[in-house]
């Protein structure tokens, strides 16, 4: 036998450790599904898979065929996940399992979506029927096939003889929430494209389907704009700390092939210090008495040039990022600088806003929301935008992030008929000693006061990994397997909440990801 891990390709070599109690978990044979599917029936009857014969192919009646790149790529990927990363045994010992599973046939029932981008209403359901000699994976769309392939790969394990083994099973599965996201922050620290791609891989293992890309912020502007190249030339950490249009395309396509949407966040009017470096007169000059202090505040909401700039920039963004949604931020706007500026004061007077700067903020966001709807996109905003009573277009999604009284916030937002995303209990950048994944796991997103109609407005949630203390060196171990807890909460049935059982499955799932 060889030394574990040596010379083997490793998927996520930097995955953090789950915990102590299951030291032998990595050696435990048997399947462990994560996140747990809706319905699982397994029989004790075992089938074996021979790596030299087994293959994944298209059912002749499938709506998709070999021209479907998403599936072709996925077949190859999952073949590798199943056979490539395990130990190969060349012993004389022979497994008693005789019956062989020869292939997995994949069938797409409806129009395949092969060349489409996933969206919030993409159908991810699938059924998986494992029986000899041929297993069948059936889904309405390719997205369901991707989820089903992940489940299929998790069903396979090596028995003590080293034989790849699977139990005959019937699995029927679909997600509880349609929006299951991970937020990454590439402004506080730049993340190399490779790190982002690796994160997408791990997301697919956990059936996440949204990458919320908080791409720019106060600290840096790494997004290379075609219309405004100065933004990143001046606003990025360095000229090598940028995402070129090609990088962005690569991320989007890599995500698409895994059934993951990429939603960019261009947070305004606050969190924009880096924007000011490459775009003159965009930020509000702050005053100290009657003089400009030399510092700048949020985006200047009183100038027409601001809106023509935003209009042009967001038009570009809407073309670069294919998703229907753009995240507009809108959080933590600091009013001090606006208050200090005499021009802003005049504007307030003129508009009749009095001293209420939330009205000015609302004015700004309103303009921005109008810009977004004219380019036929929908918006996601942080909860302050709702809290400050900005008038929102129907369909604008509110993301709840403040940990304090988040259940009350969910009630209010949904009572107002707004779709909502939950992040408040899932700020994974906050770390503590010990097994904090349990805390994330036990959150119940619908546990708030409200009617069944209100509950339906919760479209999902996101685990957020803000970047103040995170870069490529510690991203993976900080994110995984902690985010997996959120992954199951958003995918699996509400009743799946036994922490002990989850621990056992998650420990094995971690070993699979390592």
């Amino acid at each position, binding site marked *: 036998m060889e030394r574990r891990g040596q010379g083997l390709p490793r998927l996520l070599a930097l995955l953090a450790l789950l915990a102590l109690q299951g030291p032998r978990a990595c050696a435990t044979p048997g399947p462990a599904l994560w996140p747990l599917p809706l319905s699982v029936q397994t029989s004790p009857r075992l089938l074996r898979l021979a790596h030299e014969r087994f293959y994944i192919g298209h059912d002749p009646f499938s709506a998709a065929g070999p021209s479907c790149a998403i599936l072709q790529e996925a077949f190859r990927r999952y073949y590798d996940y199943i056979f490539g990363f395990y130990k190969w045994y060349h012993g004389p010992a022979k497994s008693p399992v005789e019956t062989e599973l020869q292939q997995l046939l994949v069938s797409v029932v409806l129009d395949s979506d092969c060349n489409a981008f996933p969206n919030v209403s993409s159908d991810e359901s699938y059924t998986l029927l494992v029986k000899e000699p041929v297993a069948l994976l059936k889904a309405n769309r390719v997205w369901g096939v991707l989820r089903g392939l992940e489940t299929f790969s998790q069903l396979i394990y090596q028995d003590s003889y080293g034989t790849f083994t699977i139990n005959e099973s019937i699995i029927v599965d679909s997600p509880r929430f349609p929006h299951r996201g991970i937020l990454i922050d590439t402004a506080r620290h730049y993340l190399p494209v490779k790190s982002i791609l690796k994160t997408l891989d791990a997301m697919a293992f956990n059936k996440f389907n949204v990458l919320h890309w908080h791409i720019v912020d106060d600290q840096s502007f790494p997004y290379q704009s075609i219309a405004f190249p100065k933004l990143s030339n001046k606003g990025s950490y360095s000229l090598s700390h940028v995402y070129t249009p090609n990088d962005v395309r690569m991320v989007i396509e890599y995500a698409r092939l895994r059934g993951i949407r990429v939603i960019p966040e261009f947070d305004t009017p606050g969190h924009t210090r880096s924007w000011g470096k490459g775009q003159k007169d965009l930020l509000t000059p702050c005053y100290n008495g009657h003089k400009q202090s030399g510092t700048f505040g949020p985006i200047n909401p009183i100038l027409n040039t601001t809106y023509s700039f935003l209009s042009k920039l967001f038009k570009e963004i809407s073309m670069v990022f294919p998703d229907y949604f753009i995240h507009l931020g809108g959080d933590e706007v600091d009013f001090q600088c606006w208050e200090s500026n005499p021009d802003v004061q005049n504007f307030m007077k003129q508009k009749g806003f009095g001293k209420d700067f939330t009205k000015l903020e609302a004015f700004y966001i309103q303009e921005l929301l109008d810009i977004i709807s004219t380019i036929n996109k929908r918006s996601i905003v942080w909860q302050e935008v709702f809290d400050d009573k900005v008038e929102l277009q129907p369909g604008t999604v509110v993301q709840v992030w403040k940990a304090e009284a988040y259940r009350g916030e969910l009630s209010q937002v949904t009572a107002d008929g707004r779709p909502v995303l939950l992040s408040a209990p899932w700020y994974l950048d906050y770390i503590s000693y010990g097994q904090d994944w349990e805390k994330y796991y036990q959150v119940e997103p619908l546990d708030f006061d409200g009617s069944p109609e209100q509950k339906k407005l919760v479209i999902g949630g996101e685990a957020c990994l803000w970047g103040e203390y995170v870069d490529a060196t510690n991203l*993976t171990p900080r994110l995984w397997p902690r985010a997996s807890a959120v992954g199951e909460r958003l995918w699996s049935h509400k009743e799946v909440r036994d922490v002990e059982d989850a621990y056992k499955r998650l420990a094995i799932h971690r070993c699979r990801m390592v």
Partner: protein
Amino acid sequence: MECSNSSDKPGFCAASLVIRTVTVAVACGLVTEVQRINSKAQDVCPPLNGCLGRYAEELPLQWRWSGDKEAGTGICRTIVDSGSAHTGWLSAVRQKCTLDRDAVWEEEGRKQEKQHTLEKNLLVIYVATPGCDQLPSLESVENYTLTINDEQNFLLSKTVWGALRGLETFSQLIWRSPEGTFFINKTEIEDFPRFPHRGLLLDTSRHYLPLPSILNTLDVMAYNKFNVFHWHLVDDPSFPYESFTFPELTRKGSYNPATHIYTAQDVKEVIEYARLRGIRVLVEFDTPGHTQSWGPDFYLHLGGDEVDFSCWKSNPDVQAFMKKKGFGTDFKKLESFYIQTLLDIVSAYGKGYVVWQEVFDNKVKVRPDTIIQVWREEVPVNYMKELELVTNASFRALLSAPWYLNHITYGPDWEEVYMVEPQAFEGTPEQKALVIGGEACMWGEYVDSTNLVPRLWPRAGAVAERLWSSRLMTNLDFAFKRLADFRCVLLRRGVQAQPLSVGFCEQEFEET
């Protein structure tokens, strides 16, 4: 050598060095010459050669003097307490150096024409005491002086260990202009550690750490001038050490007897790898018989912490034994009996020993030269009080309590680690002198090779500077600048060290 290891006074150390032994020339980043000046010396000095080879990978192809003010040339001459980004980690205090640019400029200007450029391509290393094959010890002298000026560039040290420390400092002094030219400032450094025992504990029992993880950690320890690797080899969860005497222990006690073990060869490799970096290996082991086969250090760590009495209480044989020995129901006496017997065994091997504080707290009789490691923060007493008690009983002490780096919190927790003052307890100067150092501990309950490196570095660097540099180094802003810069150095050297705050490094960590 007259220098005191634990002196707090920055300034030149009045030692008279006999200059002889090996001269090593470094040019263009490569070791080009190893000359023998003195016949007593050895042609090949493994620690030094290895060290030079390692630095050669990142030393510049060309270093220049420059009179260019913008490029930051300066004469190093005053004690640093703020300022330069190029002063390196752990070496600042006794480095009589500042980039006092205007003053420097004047002086340079008087002496030379403006574009004074001098290319340096030779660093001469003088080691006073012959000997390259020994193991480092608690008494090893790590002092060195480094002189870089118009006339000469040399590194003086009494021992090879000092030369290793000096080379690390030298490598940290070199910086690169945006055009890619390597520079070194005119510098005079007189440096020595404040404490002789500067350790890092790794726990390979809670989770197995593959050998490369351990070796890589030794590299980074050397960058941080740590000099003791405390290897917590076995514990309740597993027994990964392959014992010649009791092979069953490993066969049945390790997570996986084929893969999750350290062979005797592995242990030897670790010891030699550490030696080449001037690092002692202090093995913590509760079954001393095993260490006979390789026992590296004069000191052995015997553990002795957190003994659970409830099982002993429940066992009738133990109860009978207690009665026979007249211990009554005081299980601390039984523990003392065990430790006492263990210590007798170890003493017979001619080794000194380090024990956790419980052995002292439970009043086990130990030899007067025993070193007590203080690890409990508040119970039974605050760790500062414990240091007072231990040193008051004339034992030497090691501090670890505030340096459990496996405990993590959100934010810049290195600051708290940095601000610990190991001698801030009530006591006589003699008592203070009994604090021989400390150790950063990385226990393994939630740590394995997936997250060891970012959790350890650069946080352990804060402990390293506290143990190496003067107690006067307490300016957090200055430390932050240097440590953030040092993290970028670590990234450049391929160490996956995590960020301290927002920002970036020229060279980020790239997934392979």
